[in-house]
């Protein structure tokens, strides 16, 4: 796995690098000492995995993740921060406490290599131009809480001013992205622009009913009822008939 180590302390990076040299499956591409540097390197090198310190000057590790377009697998490293870890909804999370125990590190890496692979990107492709598929994972931070979300878990994106509300499982955090920007990045096979305010996940559609004005009303698995505008209805019928 192609890896980047992100930590503001040189000694901590050295130490982790040294420990990782014992793992053949891990190839450390580069290191970053702060969030901005890390964002740049992740975009240009597109690693499979990052080791990420949560407390860093400027932006915290969480803030950095929420700015990423492409989120690799993440193993958090922290000395002691119960609050940050509590804030995290533990779904894709693995974290290591510094000083890192070799056995814990080995277990974390093993767990990653056996888990379902995240969509791997072809290196060298321009970041941002590629589409997010349903297996892509995104990182969402809303206030104090954070989630890793697989796009196939998302039912609905709703536009709220400059923000978009992401509906998944029982949560609906806000992300700072416009619906148009999202539409460009989402796979049109999986996601459909229902109207000016909503993008729906086609696999989450439960019921379809006729609606006023030759439109349609779909009900999603979470119970949300979304109107499909007249203009989009034609496209929707086309899509669903195949």
């Amino acid at each position, binding site marked *: 796995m192609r890896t980047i180590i992100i930590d503001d*302390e*040189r*000694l*901590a990076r*050295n*130490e982790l690098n*040294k420990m990782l040299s014992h793992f053949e499956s891990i190839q450390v591409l580069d290191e970053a000492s*702060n969030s*901005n540097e890390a964002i740049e390197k992740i975009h240009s090198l597109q690693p499979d995995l990052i080791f990420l310190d949560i*407390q860093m*000057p*400027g932006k915290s590790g969480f803030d950095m993740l929420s700015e990423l377009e492409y989120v690799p697998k993440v193993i958090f490293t922290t*000395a*002691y*921060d119960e609050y940050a870890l509590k804030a995290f909804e533990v779904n894709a999370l693995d974290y290591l*406490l*510094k*000083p*890192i125990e070799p056995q814990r590190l080995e277990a974390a890496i093993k767990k990653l290599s056996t888990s379902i692979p995240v969509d791997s990107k072809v290196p060298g492709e321009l970041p941002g131009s590629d589409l997010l598929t349903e297996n892509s994972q995104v990182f969402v931070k809303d206030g104090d809480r954070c989630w890793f979300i697989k796009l196939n878990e998302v039912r609905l994106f709703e536009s709220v001013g400059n923000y978009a509300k992401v509906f998944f499982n029982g949560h609906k955090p806000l992300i700072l992205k416009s619906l148009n920007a999202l539409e460009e990045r989402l796979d049109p096979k999986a996601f459909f622009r229902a109207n000016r305010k909503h993008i729906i996940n086609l696999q989450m559609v439960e019921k379809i009913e006729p609606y006023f004005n030759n439109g349609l009303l779909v009900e999603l698995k979470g119970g949300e009822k979304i109107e499909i505008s007249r203009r989009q209805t034609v496209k929707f019928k086309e899509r669903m008939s195949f």
Partner: protein
Amino acid sequence: MIIGKKHYWLLQVFGWGCFFLWHIFGAWSVDRMNSPEERLIITQRAAGFALLGIAMTHVLRIVILKLGVLAKKIAIQIWLFLLLTLLMSFIAGTAEFFIYKQLGLFIKAEERIFHKSLLLILLNNALAWFSYFIIWSAVYFIYHYVSAAQKAQIDTLKLKSHIKELELKTIKTHINPHFIFNALNGIRAMVDENPQRARSAITELSNILRSSINIDKSETVALSDELDIIKDYLALEQMRFEDRLQVAYEIDPQTINKPVPPMMLQMLVENAIKHGISHEVNGGLVEIKSAIEGKTLELSVENTGCLKPQQKGGGFGIRSIRERLQLMYGDHAHFEINQSEPGKVRTKLTLPASI
């Protein structure tokens, strides 16, 4: 034992009610309740006594509260109680005389004394009232004395537990786990890179741990001891932050033997790094200064950074520093935190420079 106004009135009505019944009973037992006229006059007199009693003792209570008698020394309290009770008795006696005269409620014995001398009957009345009021005063005084003693006891207990809690909290905040684990992680990396530095780092860390464990054993330490800890602490942080952390000292030699609260200046330095330097991508400078200004010792820590509005009034650290200063020095010590210039935060301790 803490009883409110409601209970005061209940006690008043109950006490004077008993007094009223006692009067009636006394009259009945000496056969003075035989004719209707007699009964009317006795009942009116008894009711008059009770009402006058309630009114006068209530006035007495107002005077006691107004003068703040209960807050004075115990000997003064007793004298004031006696004096006020006597005064009130004369007023009550005089009032009684004029009211009864107006209403024609005198009994024969009083008529006789009255005919002898006005002064005599007033004196007679006053002495009778004094014997009642002194009981009232005694009850009032003892009640307040006992409840004040109890309250003082509860307050002492509360204060004690508060101090304990504060001590525990300050000790906890002094050993910042984030710092310890980061330092240990740095030391592990140093073991290969620079074994000599790793050895000294372990000594530095032990010094810090030892002094934070011993903090509750001594009220003050010499500034020089405190500075030793700070130097160890900063040496460890410099190992982590490397060239991102610059340190400067400006210590007045006159101040190094002055007593200071243990781990307080250290806590300011730690916060300078936690809230200041560690947020700066390019790091910054921490300056530690001590000086004598007249009769006070001034200790200050300046760091690169910006003061966030919520840090001004106090997170836990600032509050605990203020509380510790208050406990140790009362109003003779101060703590302040401000943005001394753009991009620079300053915290300052002002302590009495005794000895």
